[in-house]
């Protein structure tokens, strides 16, 4: 509990991987506030299976950064207890699918404690959850839990799509007094992009705001996590055909940026929402409904959903068949563009 700020060097590279941006955000958070703690399975000496917590134990010591036993309910239960004691825990669940053993603690305890105690016991917990598919991993290493988690009263849910977003959103999540589930798109960990950790906090978009990562006037594509890059790719291809696609990185899956959706789609009059999770009951339904409720008069076509199928996330050999592809996205764009009222 006695690390000084000087242990963190402030000289980041201009191009980093999301992995590195997250690591730096954790470093800065740990350096700034003694009450922050990082723990989870294999986060210490190993630095996490994705190395996001690499070097943190060395820098901040075994009291602030430590390995949890192999018991996910305990990881969250311990976070709740530490928060009750005044700490700001940043637990990690190693993979999306292993949030299920912790679901009771997440839903009935972590998310509910501020409410149950009438605000006496806020839960400034940031649960890091490496999420989504695309890395040809074993079973339950490619799940998309956002619609489940975003439905839980008392939770906030966010997913970054780039190193900059990763850094800023993680800092914001840690600073927020409420429990935030931070869904890291595994497939993007290794992608390098321009990165600037020196953006003043006052310039960060507020919690709950989406970001237009590309503007266009013919149709709005809405996505989060790794699907943002796919949508950008689709937009590039569509441009060759003269179709200008606006790509909205939703970022916050709870709360959803209702105003941002309305603003964009009331301009473009057409929308497609893209996610990896199974189609039925996915967050696409929520996004689609919000848009329809707000933009009914301007919509020229029903909002289209491009998603995974209603099947278990498959093994590597079938992964590409499951995940929304650039082609499937473009076909949906075509459908909304060509739609004519019957």
């Amino acid at each position, binding site marked *: 509990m006695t690390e000084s700020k000087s242990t963190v060097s402030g000289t980041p590279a201009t191009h980093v991987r999301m992995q590195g941006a997250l690591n730096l955000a954790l470093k800065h958070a740990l350096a700034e506030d003694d009450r922050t703690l990082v723990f989870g399975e294999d986060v210490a000496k190993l630095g996490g299976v994705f190395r996001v917590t690499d070097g943190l134990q060395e820098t901040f010591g075994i009291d602030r950064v430590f390995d949890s036993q192999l018991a996910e309910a305990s990881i969250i239960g311990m976070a709740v207890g530490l928060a009750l004691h005044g700490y700001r825990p940043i637990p990690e669940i190693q993979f999306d699918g292993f949030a299920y053993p912790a679901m009771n*603690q997440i839903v009935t305890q972590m998310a509910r404690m*501020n409410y149950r105690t009438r605000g006496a*016991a806020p839960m400034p917990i940031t649960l890091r959850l490496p999420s989504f598919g695309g890395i040809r991993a074993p079973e339950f290493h490619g799940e998309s839990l956002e619609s489940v988690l975003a439905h839980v*009263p008392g939770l906030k849910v966010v997913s970054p799509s780039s190193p900059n977003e990763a850094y800023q959103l993680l800092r914001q999540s840690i600073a927020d007094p409420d429990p935030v589930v931070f869904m890291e798109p595994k497939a993007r960990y290794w992608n390098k992009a321009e990165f600037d950790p020196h953006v003043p906090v006052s310039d960060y978009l507020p919690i709950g705001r989406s970001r237009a990562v590309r503007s266009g006037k013919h149709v709005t594509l809405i996505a989060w996590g790794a699907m943002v890059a796919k949508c950008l790719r689709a937009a590039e291809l569509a441009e060759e055909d003269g179709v200008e696609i606006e790509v909205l990185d939703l970022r916050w899956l709870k*709360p959803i940026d209702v*105003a941002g959706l309305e603003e964009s789609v009331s301009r473009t009059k057409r929308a497609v929402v893209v996610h990896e999770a199974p189609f039925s009951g996915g967050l696409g339904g929520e996004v689609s409904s919000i848009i329809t409720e707000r933009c009914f008069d301007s919509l020229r076509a029903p909002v289209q959903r491009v998603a995974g199928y209603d099947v278990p996330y498959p093994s590597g050999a079938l992964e590409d068949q499951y995940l929304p592809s650039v082609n499937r996205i473009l076909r949906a764009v075509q459908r909304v563009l060509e739609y004519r009222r019957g």
Partner: protein
Amino acid sequence: MQREGLILAYSPLRGQEAAQIGSGIALDLARDFAFPTYRELGVAVAMGVDLVGYLASYLGIWHGGLYDPMASRFGSINAVVSGSVLHAVGWAKGAQLSGDGGVAVTYFGDGASSEGEVHEAMNLAGIDKLPVVFFCQNNGWAISLAAERQIAGGTVAGRAAAYGIEGVQIDGNDVIAVLHATRQALARARAGDGPTVIEAMTYRAGPHSTSDDPGRYRSLDDEQKWLSRDPIASFAERLRAEGIADEQFFLAASAEAARAADAVRAGLAALGDRPGEELFDFVFANPTATLQEQKHAWQESTHD
């Protein structure tokens, strides 16, 4: 003890008064913290929790009660069986990290001991020798399931050894024995010697809850057997026998209890309706736009 008269009014606690009062009074309110279930009125009494705020939960006013769990160091009522056992371990980790000498006491039942989270909690506490007391009230029943069908090996205390921690089974109906055992466990934890499992053998004299019907699963004979070991009656007898208290004392205590009960009753009656806004006000410390819009819509709808 004077206050115990109060508890009699609250049937689900009947039979477990000694286990709860005896353990609750052992805590140091300046630094310890209790994690109750939904049946710890006795502990609340012993810890001086605002009883109107506590009982408000059972009137359907607020799930967690209206008392301040942080100020009273008695966590919110928790309806999830075993739900707060891990919190005690996390809190104890915090106490260990900060070196503040605090000890967490987690309450749970014989039924709860089957939940995986209790095992995880004991394992964690054992590994780091955390300052936590696992206080199990084995009252013989988890609703309709007898403890014999719940606990393989027969005892919860017996599990402690497997985790390399202390475990004691005590007469949960002997308030003095409970007090001693709890004090010992607290001292051990404070000294850095790690957790203790206390299994207080007692009996749920009443129904599980008001909608329960114990006649379906246990006999009156059973219940009678335990009546003879009523913790309040036997402690009163002991006080009399040892000349510590006379009839005068008991009359005064009863009167005091009645007065306290009246005050609580009056307080509950005065609570009144909850403002509907409270549906929205405590979901987040930092509320979301969506929720604020919903609150607004709700407010509008009440003006129709």
